[in-house]
């Protein structure tokens, strides 16, 4: 019965993707400029600078609208769950030199 429930959950896309991945913003840098996560993982950006930053998908000359978060001040947090494998670049709209990327790889069943 338990196995059947698990199979149903997996088919429905409810599989656990593991704990959130963390990226800190400190001294105008993303702590992990290139981060690899499994599909389904939530990435959490937290601002440790006492100034506004953004987490905006794409590049400064070509924001792509996949995600956009505002980190208004120190302590602010932005979360985004990455369900589809791929390479997601992002930057800070206020400080274009601040860039990062999330590389999302297919989730392997049994991983947590």
């Amino acid at each position, binding site marked *: 019965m338990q196995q059947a429930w698990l199979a149903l959950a997996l088919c429905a896309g409810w599989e656990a993707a593991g704990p959130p991945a963390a990226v800190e913003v400190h*001294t105008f840098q993303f702590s992990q400029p290139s981060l690899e996560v499994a599909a389904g993982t939530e990435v959490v950006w937290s601002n440790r600078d006492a*100034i506004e930053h953004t987490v905006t998908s794409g590049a400064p000359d070509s924001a792509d609208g996949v995600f956009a978060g505002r980190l208004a001040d120190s302590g602010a947090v932005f979360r985004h769950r990455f369900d589809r494998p791929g390479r997601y670049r992002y930057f800070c709209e206020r400080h274009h*030199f601040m860039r990062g990327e999330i590389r999302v790889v297919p989730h392997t069943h049994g991983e947590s």
Partner: protein
Amino acid sequence: MSLMSRIGSGAAVLAAALTLMSAPASAQTMAASDLRTALNTGLAEHVWLAAATTEAALGGRSGEFKDAAAALDANSVALSQAIGSVYGHGAGTAFLELWRKHIGFFVDYTNGVAKKDKAAQDKAVKDLMGYAEDFGAFLASANPNLPKDVVAGLVRDHAVGLKAVVDAQAAGDWPTAYAKLREAAAHMQMIADPLAGAIAKQFPEKYAMK
């Protein structure tokens, strides 16, 4: 001492000090006073070179402007290397981007003055004031001994001081230009001393008090 020889002398002191700052921490400690001297030299040099650059730009001396701007950028890189030696390469790179940004705003202001474009001048001043907040946040983030608002205020004063130099240069009022330039260069001590003190306090094992 002429302006260029003063700059050359300052660059030599800064280079020597930065070499010392960049050495592995385990190999030596640097006197806190040497750190203070290095930052004072580097930041004052920034003002002298910025003024040489704006003067050349306003005078339409493009060759001199190019060389002065290159020297100014070399100073920026040296300052960023000093920050990077303390807070890591990434922080040094972020510092350099921020520092170059404020120089860009000064170029915008100088161009606005040259063209008598008040709107461009006002925008550049607004950008410089906003930049002061960013720079205050950067240093406060790197070092908890540096309050953001205090640093931002000092950087705003720096911007206002250099603006006065550019205005006097544009008016051909050389007595005022050089008086304001001396003030602007001396003001950098207001930034360099607290910065050096805060770094020495944050890393007492690396910066020895003598």
